[in-house]
């Protein structure tokens, strides 16, 4: 009896370690997120990240007496619920693997987080997208605006890598100074973390379940948010790295991980759109091409300075990085104000031909449109692999 008891414990422990002893390969995360994204689209709409954070900002400033957009309370707007549960999922993932700690960076880094977040908020609103809506979901939606937005992201990332190298050489003090890590699970400490991890997951599931009475959409958004957070944290899924590494280390792995997710999602999205299960124009934004290129560049610069895009900031916030909390605050401030005071004038100034919704299958049909996207991805793949071999564009 005791023998089988010990054996059973060993097997469960083994199962636990499969998930939580080491990080998952990032491509595993890409595929799991790609599948989850299809589920979101079936439930309501594809994945988007910045809309949820904007909703937090809108609600906050409305509470303070402002007159900003009203998309619903934070607990009733699907993307807001998704983002909250995503942080919880990442928090749980970090706890399960004893990687959680409140990490306070040097003060200069906090400002970089905030500044990066402000830029991301500005770019996300002007470009009507972020790395998810305008890239990870935008490509599978077969939107050409998303391709332009991604070109902007790459340009912004490239500029920001140049800036970071300059900063480290000329102003090393900005990223050094007093730091603090608390609640760490170092050597022999932190056995409370996995226990709290279970509590967080159970609370997350209860939240999802409680929505079933009023809105099955919110219930699924909550559950998928929790799952996304866990997957992002365990696989350290990072769109910034996918776009940045060619200019830094030259590694192609993060780019391949994002491509894997896009490919999986594209398969599902095309079926959903082609069969008319959901609207064809979903996640095809009116940003082709000027808003996409300008917004993408600003967003790309901001996310690289902050060290995470919207989702990257959310899951790292759940892991306890205070710099990324600052980044989220920056986005919460910049998005409502940009939407109210800058975006209307910016869009009014543009002729219609510069702010189009460009759904490629509308022009050339579904088959060729998918072919075009696969060809773009093949070129991207060949570029990152060639660059990894030759180091042509990498910094070291």
């Amino acid at each position, binding site marked *: 009896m005791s023998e089988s008891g010990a054996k059973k414990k060993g097997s469960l422990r083994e199962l636990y370690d499969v998930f939580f002893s080491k*990080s998952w390969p990032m491509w595993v995360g890409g595929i799991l997120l790609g599948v989850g994204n299809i589920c979101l689209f079936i439930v309501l709409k594809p994945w988007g990240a910045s809309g949820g954070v904007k909703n937090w900002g809108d609600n906050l400033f409305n509470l303070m007496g402002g007159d900003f957009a009203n998309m619903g309370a934070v607990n009733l707007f699907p993307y807001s619920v998704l983002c909250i549960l995503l942080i919880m999922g990442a928090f749980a993932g*970090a706890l399960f*693997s004893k*990687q959680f*700690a409140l*990490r*306070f*960076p*040097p003060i200069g*880094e906090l400002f970089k987080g905030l500044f990066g977040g402000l830029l991301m908020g500005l770019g996300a609103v002007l470009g009507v997208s972020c790395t998810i809506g305008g890239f990870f979901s935008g490509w599978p939606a077969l939107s050409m605006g998303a391709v332009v937005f991604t070109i902007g992201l790459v340009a912004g990332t490239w500029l920001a890598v140049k800036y*970071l*190298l300059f900063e*480290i*050489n000329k102003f090393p003090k900005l*990223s*050094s100074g007093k*730091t*603090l*890590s608390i609640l*760490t699970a*170092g*050597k022999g*400490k932190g056995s409370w973390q996995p226990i709290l991890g279970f509590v967080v997951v159970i609370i997350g599931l209860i939240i999802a379940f409680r929505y079933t009475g009023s809105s099955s959409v919110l219930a699924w958004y909550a559950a998928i948010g929790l799952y996304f957070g866990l997957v992002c944290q365990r696989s*350290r899924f*990072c769109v910034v*790295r996918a776009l*940045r590494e060619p200019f*830094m*280390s*030259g*590694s192609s792995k993060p780019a391949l991980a994002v491509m894997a997710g896009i490919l999986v999602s594209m398969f599902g999205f095309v079926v959903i759109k082609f069969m008319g299960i959901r609207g064809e124009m979903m996640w095809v934004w009116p940003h082709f091409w000027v808003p996409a290129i300008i917004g993408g560049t600003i967003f790309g610069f901001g996310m*690289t300075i902050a*060290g*995470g895009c919207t989702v990257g900031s959310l899951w*790292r916030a759940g*892991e306890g*990085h205070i*710099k*990324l909390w600052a980044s989220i605050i920056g986005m919460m401030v910049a998005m409502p104000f940009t939407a109210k005071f800058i975006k209307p004038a910016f869009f009014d100034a543009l002729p219609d031909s510069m702010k189009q919704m460009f759904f490629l299958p509308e022009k050339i049909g579904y088959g060729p449109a998918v072919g075009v996207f696969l060809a773009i991805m093949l070129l991207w793949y060949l570029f990152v692999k060639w660059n990894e071999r030759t180091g042509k564009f990498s*910094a*070291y």
Partner: protein
Amino acid sequence: MQGDVILDCKGLSCPMPILKLAMAIKKLEVGKVLEMYGTDPGSKDDVPAWCGKTGNSLLEVVDTEDGFTFFIRREK
């Protein structure tokens, strides 16, 4: 184990530890050892990958009270 030069990356998150590591190694003499402190869980994957790619040796990774210490020898 003890390093010749210390690089403190505590509290920093991706990509700062790796950028600082790349800069610090450039300033180190070949054969000397860098003792790098970190708290970002991402560094545990990134530092070995960086060493593999750049041909420097990761001699040891030690778990500490609040994070981990890497010992990296400059090879070329």
